[in-house]
């Protein structure tokens, strides 16, 4: 076991993937000499050279389009998008090319591309630097979407994403880049749980609280606070947003009968909506209350001084827990 920050774990994952397979090449703005704006690729240029750690011109569609061409040539490109809000210029290349070429050619062209996106808010960043665009990609057939929440998962999932023959959108919660955790650097990838598997982070019996990315930390805080209040929350980290591991989710819901889903992204047609719809289809008869969402508001990501009113926090999660438990809450009014 080695204690690493989430950022360092990602760097270690890239290094290991590049050592394992010389077809793995990295592309992105500032990833070479600078080591990336978050330093995730720090040191990789020195070890692997400029042919495999490719500094690019500042053009996101160009970067992803180049990755498509490299994939045609048999490479496994790993793209770094500098910030979440900068992925939109590459949207066409991702949804119309990366996602579709395997289907169009019935598997004759593979797109084993990993698109890393430093993601979501909570760091007081400038405009376009705190977006949560995951629903766009979850809605796109042909892509896999992964969101990590801790260093161990980051290290393992990134290597799995790179090794996958499918394209993977890989969300890295930048709020957690400096969070530390134990990572098993030497553990064989073959022994790891599959990339799409959800994880019960904290077992509980009263309510299933589903989150992913940085919201997992908030969910765990909520679980601790709820315990003080005599309520047992089961926290599930989805880890994969496409596919979602509904077997694990449903097993938890059948146990608790109550569900809250939390994410930073805005609400309408979001991941939580999809998860709740699927839960309702699968285990309606087990539900004791209508499942609830706690999400960002349907507003453009607000300026930094206001983001704390946008991001779901401990209290908003607990309020939703109270609502599914039919305890006094923001709808019914707090008991005096």
């Amino acid at each position, binding site marked *: 076991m080695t204690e690493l920050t989430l950022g360092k774990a990602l760097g270690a994952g890239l290094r290991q993937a590049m050592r394992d397979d010389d077809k793995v090449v990295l592309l992105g703005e500032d990833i070479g000499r600078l080591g990336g704006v978050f330093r995730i690729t720090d040191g990789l240029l020195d070890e692997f050279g400029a042919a495999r750690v490719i500094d690019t011109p500042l053009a996101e569609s*160009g970067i992803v389009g180049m990755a498509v061409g490299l994939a045609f040539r048999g490479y496994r490109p790993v793209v770094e998008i500098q910030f979440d809000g900068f992925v939109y210029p590459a949207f066409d290349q991702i949804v119309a090319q990366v996602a579709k070429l395997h289907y169009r050619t019935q598997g004759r062209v593979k797109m084993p591309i990993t698109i890393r996106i430093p993601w979501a808010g909570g760091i007081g960043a400038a405009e376009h630097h705190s977006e949560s665009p995951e629903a766009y990609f979850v809605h796109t057939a042909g892509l896999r979407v992964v969101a990590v929440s801790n260093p161990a998962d980051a290290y393992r999932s990134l290597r799995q994403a790179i090794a996958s023959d499918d394209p993977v959108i890989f969300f890295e919660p930048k709020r957690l880049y400096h969070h530390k955790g134990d990572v098993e650097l030497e553990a064989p990838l073959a022994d790891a749980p599959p990339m799409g598997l959800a994880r019960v982070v904290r077992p509980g019996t009263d309510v299933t609280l589903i989150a992913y990315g940085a919201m997992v930390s908030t969910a765990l805080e909520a679980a601790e606070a709820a315990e003080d209040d005599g309520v047992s929350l089961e926290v599930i980290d989805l880890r994969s947003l496409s596919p979602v591991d*509904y077997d694990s989710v449903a097993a938890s819901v059948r146990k608790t009968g109550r569900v809250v889903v939390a994410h930073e992204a805005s609400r309408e047609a979001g991941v939580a909506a999809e998860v709740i719809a699927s839960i309702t289809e699968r285990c309606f008869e087990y539900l004791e209350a209508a499942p609830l969402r706690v999400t960002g508001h349907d507003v453009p990501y607000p300026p930094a001084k206001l983001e704390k009113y946008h991001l779901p926090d401990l209290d908003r999660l607990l309020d939703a827990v109270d609502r599914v438990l039919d305890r006094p809450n923001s709808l019914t009014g707090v008991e005096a």
Partner: protein
Amino acid sequence: MSPQITPIADTAQDLELSERILAPDGSRIPNPRLDAFVADVDAAQLRALHRDMVILRRIDAEGVALQRQGQLGLWAPCQGQEATQIGTARALAPQDYVFPSYRETGVIYARGAQPGDYVRMWRGEEGAGHDPATLRVAPLQIIIGAQTLHAVGYALGIRHEATDEVAVTYFGDGATSQGDVNEAMIFASSYQAPVVFVCQNNHWAISEPVSLQSQYPIAGRAPGFGIPSLRVDGNDVLACLAAMRWALDHARSGKGPAYIEAVTYRMGPHTTADDPKRYRDEAELESWRRRDPIERLEAHLRAAGQLDEHQLAETQAAADDVAKAMRAACLGMVTRPPLAVFDGVYAEPHTGLDRQREDYAAYLATFEAEA
């Protein structure tokens, strides 16, 4: 001399500003820049180019006919662009890899497409018409200009491996307005990638004339990216062959990307869903009929006594045979079973999609139970 760069008067029509080897009447004119690249081309090879163009025109006509008869959902005609497509594609080496747009019927023909390959996508049977690995041609691209970046990425891979392959991408004049095409030129230049850009300036992006998109000859843009370019008469198959050999030599010998603008004309509609009468002047079409690429080479060969009626008839018969095989392949296609709609989305199992497939299979099975 003024350092200012100024647009020329008529970017679209002034063919005197493009490279030529065959004049519109078929006579050969000296071209100091290009002649050396086609010095080896003899009468037999010229006849082969002529035959290719005649077959391509016949394939194209059959495509239009099949669409009109309801056998294809859509067809994108290339009539008038035979010299550009055949001339450039016949310069390719087997190991080169092509990233085409949807109109490059002649390019996939020259790369060895099978009769069904021309229609499979347009008929709606599969997302792509041919096997990319066999032809070394990427699937036809409908998103305008997206494929140019793929060619540059592929070429970057070639460069890393230091082989003598070249990536080639085809696109239209309309595509040069796209960000992707400009980004592709920047990236190609940044990495000195062995890639050749072939812009088929066919004058119309559906109803928008090239003059709306370009206030400067399109080939003139490439040097601004650090990429050498040639503006070539796209209805002169010899000039297209020569220009492409120049561009491929340049890229193959490690000198980086090269760019060709072939000035040609789309005689028919943009696609079979388009009506060019709404936006295009009949007189313009007529003036381009007089520059027909096939007639030009035919006139050249006849004047040299290298093409007789018997050979012409034989070529036409060969073209009819290809069209017949294409029609048979089209009408003989068997649509895959319903569950095939799920095939090939992912390379590895995806539990969400697998469940949808199971649900749909169960639903379909209810009809079998009824029967």
